[in-house]
């Protein structure tokens, strides 16, 4: 009798304390019954901020909760505990698993998150706030208010404020909505803009005053985001442009300086990418500690691999076809088929995995809606370096001089004692090597497979056609221009139409200016 | 009516008839005001068939033609000489429409503005050009080469349903005779010797019956005998056709000007006319000697 009374008093006191335990009813309501009722119960418990609740929610998510009749058990480490009291009990034989559908899981996760809001760890609170952005509704409001009241960190407090406003925006009270709309104007999040726009839909918000405020807030957020969007387009355009530049530079040498159309250029890129893959695997297997630096070894490996293949191509096939561009086109297409099939035989027809080293993963958050990935930044830098070294090599070194001489007047160069055959091979190898570097770069941002090159052939030729032959400057401008143009149009019309429009633009441009952007002038250009 | 008066009257009538007969299109009038311009007809009433006025062509800063002015009379055979790079080929490019000059005027007859026409149009109104390097259709036979040059409808449909008639056959036959390729009528043009190809090209030119022929180094690579024959041919064409011959071979120029020592020879240098006169005058001109010998 005493015990019973004591228990009742204890339980009542516990209930009154309201923050230290779950009642059996609560637990039952959360584990047994229809999903809607269960969800409501979970919401209530979450709102109450009970600190035993997280454990129970986690148990639900871990599928460790079982029921028998109206008793609820949590099974941990082979032991069954009573869900409400936590005492160890015997698990009845007829105990059933509590099944959680996807929706229930989401509810439980949301509940967990909202409870984290009150966690003592600031990082957990920050994480919880982020999670709540996705699925916040009025039921969580008391919890949010509670968290807002006790929040000490200023930044988190303002974020909570925005969260609160996001909920209040659909409150029944007009003043609350107005206030919420006003405070949301300070947001940096694209999600907030969507939320406000939703409220602006014809049948959502009816009060004109609130609508006006909503629109003001939307435009405020829009202008803040606009810069992010614009810079984002420029960055992706520059990134694409830098990739196109790397791809087209090699082609600019072989076609622009030597007059050779190389349809296997894409495959030389692919070889560079696979060389990177091989180097990665070697590091993984033998030098795991230095894995992050595999890229340093991969760059020269890719260059050499492609350069060697290119030199082999030149010596065995292309040198016999100088002066016959259409035949060179067909022969190099044949070589590309052989190369692709060769790679398929050695590495398999599927894509292979090339991982970014750690220092290239992730990105820098420049603005709220603009994240610049490190790997793309690295590629832009890499492209600039390659361009600079190439320009230096062509303009200042002996080899560059020989290449220019042989291109402009082969017989004269031969008379001067230049070994034109060797120069041809070196120049072609150089162009191919750069293609290899492009492949290495591509391996860091895209998939590596046997048909890696096929996707870039048309683009790279367009760059060369647009840029004009004979000078590297044209290739640079054309590559960057096409990259940015493509990305700009993509935002408008979608990727496929953007590509089509770019191709049409080039064809039309060539009408007006058949020699491209920068061309060698004078009578020789007519050849 | 006195006998003197009658005589005077007859004389006046005859003079008038003679004047009318020699009058030409404009009825003997000198002034050109109020004359009708006929489409496609080359107007040579005033004499020159080709006017080049202050033509300037520059390629990337380099002036290929520098204020060049040249006038070729109808029926004239003009020789043009000059060192390499003097602008001779560029001048021909301008006349035939291959290159547009930066400034200046080019007229065919007094009325046809060459700068406004396309190459094939210029070719059909009567300017024929022979290239420095003989360009014939290598994979077609000699006969077919000449057949393509026949003066006929150049349209697509016409060429699909084209059949040679007797007159055209005869023309080709006589042309083959003229260019000494009668025996090689069925040979593939690419297999001809260099000199024969030059002749074939000249023949193709003549098939179009052009009023003005532009000949860029027509005897380059020819033997002495072939050179002589070429000179004969050109001299026979002179009068009915106007010819502009660009050459380096002074012997050939001698042969061309042999019948009339006063025939004009023009010397081009660095894109403009350096000297103009008879061959003797030009050869003794100090400036010309300096430019050729580089003193």
């Amino acid at each position, binding site marked *: 009798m005493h015990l019973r009374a004591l228990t009742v008093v204890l339980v009542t006191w516990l209930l009154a304390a309201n923050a230290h335990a779950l009642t059996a009813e609560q637990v039952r309501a959360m584990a047994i019954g229809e999903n809607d009722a269960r969800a409501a119960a979970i919401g209530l418990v979450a709102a109450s901020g009970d600190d035993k609740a997280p454990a129970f929610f986690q148990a639900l998510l871990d599928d460790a909760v079982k029921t028998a009749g109206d008793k609820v058990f949590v099974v941990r480490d082979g032991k069954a505990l009573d869900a409400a009291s936590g005492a160890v009990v015997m698990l009845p034989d007829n105990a059933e698993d509590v099944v959680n559908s996807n929706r229930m899981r989401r509810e439980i996760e949301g509940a967990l998150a909202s409870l984290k809001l009150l966690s003592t760890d600031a990082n957990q609170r920050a994480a919880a706030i982020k999670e709540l952005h996705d699925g916040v509704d009025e039921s969580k409001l008391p919890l949010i208010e509670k968290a807002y009241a006790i929040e000490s960190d200023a930044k988190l407090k303002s974020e909570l404020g925005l969260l609160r406003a996001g909920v209040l925006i659909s409150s029944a009270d007009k003043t609350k909505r107005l206030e919420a709309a006003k405070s949301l104007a300070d947001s940096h999040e694209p999600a907030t803009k969507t939320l406000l726009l939703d409220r602006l839909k014809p049948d959502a918000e009816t009060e004109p005053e609130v609508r006006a405020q909503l629109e003001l807030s939307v435009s405020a957020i829009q202008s803040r985001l606009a810069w992010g969007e614009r810079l984002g387009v420029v960055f992706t355009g520059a990134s694409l442009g830098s990739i196109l530049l790397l791809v087209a530079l090699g082609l600019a040498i072989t076609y622009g300086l030597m007059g050779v159309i190389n349809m296997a250029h894409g495959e030389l890129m692919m070889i560079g990418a696979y060389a990177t893959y091989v180097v990665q695997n070697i590091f993984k297997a033998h030098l795991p500690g230095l894995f992050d630096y595999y890229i340093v070894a991969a760059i020269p490996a890719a260059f050499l691999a492609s350069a060697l293949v290119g030199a082999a191509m030149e010596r065995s096939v292309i040198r016999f076809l100088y002066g016959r561009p259409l035949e060179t086109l067909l022969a190099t297409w044949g070589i590309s088929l052989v190369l692709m099939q060769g790679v398929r035989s050695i590495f398999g027809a599927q894509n292979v995995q090339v991982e970014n080293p750690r220092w290239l993963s992730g990105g820098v958050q420049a603005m709220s809606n603009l994240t610049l990935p490190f790997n793309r930044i690295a590629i832009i830098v890499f492209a600039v370096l390659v361009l600079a070294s190439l320009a230096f090599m062509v303009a200042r070194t002996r080899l560059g001089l020989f290449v220019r001489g042989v291109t402009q007047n082969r017989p004269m160069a031969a008379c001067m004692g230049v070994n034109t055959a060797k120069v041809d091979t070196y120049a072609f190898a150089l162009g191919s090597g750069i293609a290899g570097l492009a492949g290495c770069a591509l391996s860091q941002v895209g998939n590596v497979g046997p048909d890696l090159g096929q996707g870039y052939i048309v683009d790279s*030729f367009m760059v060369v056609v647009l840029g004009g032959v004979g000078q590297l400057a044209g290739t640079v401008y054309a590559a960057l221009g096409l990259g940015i143009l493509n990305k700009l149009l993509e935002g408008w019309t979608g990727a496929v139409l953007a590509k089509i429009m770019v191709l049409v633009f080039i064809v039309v441009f060539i009408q007006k200016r058949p020699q491209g952007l920068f061309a060698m002038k004078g009578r020789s250009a007519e050849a | 009516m006195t006998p003197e008066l009658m005589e005077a009257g007859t004389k006046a009538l005859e003079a008038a008839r003679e004047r009318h007969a020699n009058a030409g299109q404009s009825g003997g009038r000198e002034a050109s005001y109020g004359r009708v311009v006929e489409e496609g007809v080359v107007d040579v009433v005033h004499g020159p068939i080709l006017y080049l006025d202050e033509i300037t062509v520059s390629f990337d800063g380099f002036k290929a033609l520098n204020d060049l002015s040249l006038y070729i009379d109808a029926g004239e055979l003009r020789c043009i000489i000059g060192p390499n790079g003097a602008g001779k080929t560029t001048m021909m490019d301008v006349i035939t429409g291959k290159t547009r000059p930066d400034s200046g005027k080019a007229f065919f007859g007094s009325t046809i503005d060459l700068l406004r026409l396309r190459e094939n149009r210029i070719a059909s109104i009567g300017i*024929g050009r022979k290239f420095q390097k003989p360009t014939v*259709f290598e994979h077609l036979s000699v006969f077919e080469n000449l057949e393509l040059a026949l003066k006929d409808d*150049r349209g697509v449909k016409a*060429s699909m349903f084209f059949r040679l008639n007797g007159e055209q*056959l005869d023309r080709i036959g006589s042309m083959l005779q003229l260019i000494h390729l009668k025996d090689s009528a069925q040979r593939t043009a690419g297999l001809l010797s260099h000199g024969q190809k030059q002749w074939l090209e000249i023949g193709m030119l003549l098939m179009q019956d052009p009023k003005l022929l532009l000949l860029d180094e027509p005897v380059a690579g020819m033997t002495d005998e072939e050179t002589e024959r070429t000179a004969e041919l050109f001299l026979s064409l002179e009068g009915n056709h106007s010819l502009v011959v660009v050459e380096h071979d002074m012997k050939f120029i001698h042969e061309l000007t042999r019948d009339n020592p006063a025939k004009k020879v023009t010397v081009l240098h660095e894109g403009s006319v350096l000297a103009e006169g008879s061959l003797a005058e030009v050869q003794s001109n100090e400036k010309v000697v300096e430019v050729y010998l580089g003193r």
Partner: protein
Amino acid sequence: MSALPETTLSREREREQPANPPMASSLARWRERPFDTSGGVRVIALSALLLIAVIAPILNLAVPQGSALHLSDYAVALIAKIMCYAICALAMDLIWGYTGILSLGHGVFFALGGYAMGMYLMRQIGRDGNYQSDLPDFMVFLDWKALPWHWAFSDSFVATLALIVLVPGLLAFVFGFFAFRSRIKGVYFSIITQAMTFATMLLFFRNETGFGGNNGFTDFKRILGIAIARPSTRMLLFVITGCTLLGFFLFARWLVASKFGRVLQAIRDAESRVMFTGYDPLRYKLTIWVISAVMCGIAGALYVPQVGIINPSEMSPAASIEIAIWTAVGGRASLIGPIVGAFFVNGAKSWFTQAFPEFWLYFLGALFIAVTLFLPQGIIGLVKRRKKEERA
């Protein structure tokens, strides 16, 4: 100077050199030249016609299946497919072999003709498709409620026939006009044709374009009310394809032997001289370009009902480049060469993909290299050289 490929005509003339006949009669021969119906060609044409229209049907339909002479359905379908390809190769020879324009995008015309026929065949499925709806299956799948505007004429066979000719023709006309007008030549032109076919392929891959997306059209049931799968229909299509190939071959011969054909060859050899002779190359190039495009379109339209499927990969740059290799392998500027080349390469492909599939691409690649390096005149050139050596 590179070696000159010799045409049949020039070699006949070479033979007549020593005789030195009197001028008038030798020239008089040329009067009759335009269409050479000499014995050789007549025999070939008639025997081909016999094979296609009489012998093949008998061997397929009348001869029983077990017999050694029986022409299997599989063989019929394969030969018909290759004949369609041969038409494309012939078209390619006209523009590349004779006019010197290498197009690496002719597949797009083939595919457009195929799609036009495909649209008609899709409508002919009627309500027998998976969804039992008036709309083609893929449209039901995409949740479309009505036929888009470009399917307007797809239920009329006559209109479809017109579209097969007009759509590739129009695209070719517009593209060719702008390309030739700006004097784009040589390699640049080839690259731009690649871009053209690539762009069109991307367009057709999208579901929104209304051509079945990357699945294209398939599962045909009827044509003109007759069931497609029946052997008699197949044989009929086979005979029509063969006769079309023959017809195009004779047409091409006529075209090439006429003055028009000679102007084309002149354009290939010395375009500037052609201009200075007073011809407008643009008109000639445009004409032959459109003719070859329409030929490919018709080939595509014949291909689709026999192969049973059309999808955007027919427009891939790779497919168009293959057309060029058929022509090169067979022998450019010979008309019979491309047909031989198409049969040889596709026959090899068929054999390889069954026997040694991994080696097919090696073989094809090697073929490209070998033909450009060692066999610029193709198979026909090889045959001619042999004959010449035998006579010498």
